[in-house]
């Protein structure tokens, strides 16, 4: 599934311009990493692209459908059928177990996944035996992986992940990256980690709400070097 952003601008009040006329396109089946300094608008970009937030100006087109004309319900239905999202702050429902959290989106959509599928999805992210634990009983990294499983189980056509490895050690992080790389969908990921970004087909660099650069598939070292020069310039 292809996602296209056309001069997307997002302002908060009068002072903060989180995105300033960003255009980008994510082709079917590609894996893109978005990088940039803190506060540069990465999360905002992801939210707008996923239809979680509406831009102040510009247009987002998912699979040929413009999000601008959709009602709140229409937007929700589109999201829950085609889009998966892993939040930066994992946002699990604290009153539900890991398994219930994973099942929730499908449950809301009216096709509750069978227990087997929940178990296998949790196993994919390395949490085979933690189904019945509550978020408060899981470590930060484990919660993050539950949130990832929650996005995976809907089999989305496009998956957005906001720093999916932010709380993970490098070994677990590698596992998650391989999972995302091999996931049969368009994947867009925000990360600060050059190693993680090196799994992507290309890397977009964001600074101060502007798309400043683009790298084709590169090694972690090359990405790190690029980041360093960019941060030095601002």
């Amino acid at each position, binding site marked *: 599934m292809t996602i296209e952003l056309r001069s997307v601008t997002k302002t908060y009040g009068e002072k903060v311009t989180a995105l300033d006329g960003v255009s980008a396109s994510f082709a079917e089946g590609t894996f893109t990493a978005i990088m940039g300094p803190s506060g540069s608008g990465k999360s905002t970009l992801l939210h707008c692209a996923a239809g979680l937030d509406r831009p102040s100006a510009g247009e987002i087109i998912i699979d040929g459908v413009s999000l601008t004309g959709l009602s*709140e319900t229409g937007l929700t239905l589109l999201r829950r059928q085609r889009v998966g999202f892993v939040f930066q702050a994992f*946002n699990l429902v604290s009153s*539900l177990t890991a398994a219930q959290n994973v099942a929730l989106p499908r449950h809301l959509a009216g096709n509750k996944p069978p227990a087997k599928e929940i178990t296998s999805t949790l196993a994919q992210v390395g949490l085979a035996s933690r189904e019945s634990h509550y978020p408060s009983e899981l470590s930060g990294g484990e919660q993050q992986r539950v949130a990832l499983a929650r996005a995976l189980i809907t089999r989305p056509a496009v998956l957005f992940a906001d720093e999916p490895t932010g709380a993970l050690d490098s070994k677990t992080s590698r596992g998650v990256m391989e999972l995302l790389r091999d996931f049969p969908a368009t994947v867009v990921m925000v990360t600060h980690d050059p190693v993680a970004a090196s799994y992507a087909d290309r890397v977009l660099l964001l600074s101060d709400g502007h798309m400043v650069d683009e790298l084709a598939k590169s090694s972690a070292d090359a990405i790190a070097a690029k980041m360093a020069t960019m941060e030095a310039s601002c």
Partner: protein
Amino acid sequence: MLSLASVKANRVRLLGSFVALLLGVTMLTLTALLLVSAKPQVPQRFSATTVAVTPLPAQAPSDTFPDHPRWTIAEATALAEKLHGVLDTPFYAQAVIDGKPAKATAGNTWATAVLGNTRVTSGSAPANADEVAVPADLGRQPGDTVTILTAPGPRDYRVSAVHDGTELYFRDVPPETGVLAIGVLGDVDPAAVKAIVGSQAQVLAGSELSALEPPGDARTRWIGMQVLTAMGALSAFVAVFLVAATFSFSVLQRRREFGLLRAVGATPGQLRRLLLREAVLVAASAGAIGVALGVVGAPVVGSLLIDAGVEPASFTVRYDPLPMAAAYLTGIAVAAAGVWIASHRAARVRPLEALRVAEAERRPMTRSRWIGGVLAAAIGVLAGVATASADALSMPTYAGLTAMALVVAMSLLSPVVVPPLARVLMAPLSRSAVGLLVRQNAATAARRTAATAAPVLLTVAFTMLVTGMVATGASAYAARRADALPTAAVLVADGTPGLTQAVVDGSPGIVLKPTTVFLGREPLSVMGSSQTTGLTVSETLAAKHGWKWGSTVELTVASGAKVQWTIQDVLPDREVPLGVQVPAHLVPPSVLTQAVYLAADGVKAPGLGAKVLSAPDYAAQADAEEDRLVWTFTLILVGMAGGFTLIAVANTLLMATRGRLNDLLVLRKAGATAGQIRRLVAAETAVVVAIGAALGMVVATGALLAIRAGLSEQMGLPVPMTVPWPTIGVTVALCLVTGFAASVLPLPRR
């Protein structure tokens, strides 16, 4: 099912809504049951009677309660023989125990005992004029002597029997006692009886027998009905307000949860349905308990009403399933409506709001809130204008409407005024860290603060309105009573419904003996007075009936006898207060005397059941009884509504504190001590109560100003606005104490 899981998961959070609903339904059930029970009842003494035949009833306005017309014994006997009926001849009879009149009871002939299925438990029926059968609770045994007051005076009787009924039974009746009804027992057809008596009498059967209730009881019941109607209106309002406010508050508190659900794919419609199902589930269980509590509470409140004198002693709660079902369904409907309105806001929660942990609401006022608030304020102002020009009867209704509309307006609009009010209130503390936090919290969470303050607002507004209304009314009427009495001392009843003839005979003075006579079926109030030499009528009454000096009118008096009285005088209305005045000796001896204006030298020891009062005391006592009733009325209303709203105050503060535990935890981690947290919460509670109280007072002042204007208009003189500040102070203090208990005590100790 998602909603059930959600109810389980949110059990603690839904507790607040549960409590609000429980309170609301309890209140609704209670008042609805009492209201339905307040219908007239068949007097106990007719409980076994199939049909009663009575004189045609008086034709009088429904809010006046004249005596029932009677037949003479001679007249009724012939009819009773045809019907094989029993003459019911209730008369005044009161036992004297230890020198004091016992709780008033009525006398009748033993023959009437069968009408109420009263049976002798020991001894035998009174066989001669000196014997009496007494109820068991009098504590007398057959063979004892007991003094009994009847209209002629006290007399000793020998107890011949103890029975299981409530009346005193004699063989004979005092002279000139009329017949109230002829009771027929057994399997008789009312239609057949009707055919025998024709159109000259009234035939009552089944529940119609309640028409034979004593007029005093009927009047008390009527007053009770006013009290209960006001209670009903108030509790309906309070219930709806509390439930709606609490549900929208709980929705407000769960924004984060809703945002999260939206983010993982719940549609706005799904959220609304989830909330609705949840509300109905909560309402269904809370309502059931509420109905049960109402059923348990109704007889308790009922006996309070009897003690307060606003319901007759015969009042009992009837457990009609209809009002219970109505209260239950109302609870569910209100919860559903309340949550439905609130759910629109919840459903509009953007998915991203889940990501923002911080609570700051940038837009506390929505457009619908503005519209609702302004609309309610407009209704309040209109009702206030109507109050200012209303008559005495409709004024409380309009005043109530004014207050209700203003309460709604104020609680809808209060998020606007909360931040500046909080700033002003916290100015003295603004240098301390706690002061700063409190101010910021109130300002950034205007909606939450306003929602928490709403029950306080309601409590204070209604206490101040109701007590202020009564006090302002009292001071207005005080301006009108100052007539001097033509005497220095007055003989009045003491523990009895009136003075017996024996007492009157021993005390020279002006005798006042009010009674009712019937002109055809029209009841006329008559003052029997020893000062009047002949029949005197007021100009208005004379004009109405075409009477002139010298006209002869045929009237039926209390004994059922027909009398021909000739009019001797027609005087201006103010000289004949009741409309008709006759010499006291023309009033049948079965009627008790109300008062004797004692001659200056005539003050002797008062007889049994009488006491002497100075003229000012007498005037004050007459008012005191009136005042007592009004204040009782007030206390019942304020007590009931206040009790429920206080629980609601505790409830919302508990909800608010629980909802903020996370915030408080963050503060703890940032270095606040447990004591600082406690002080912070206490100060916040104080600010909430202060804001609620201030807004409540504004509302009540508005309604009271309207009332004052209305009273001034009615009386044509300026009326001061009187507000019982101590009562309001106590109310605010109670809110504060309840608030502290609900918010500070549940905090973790360490």
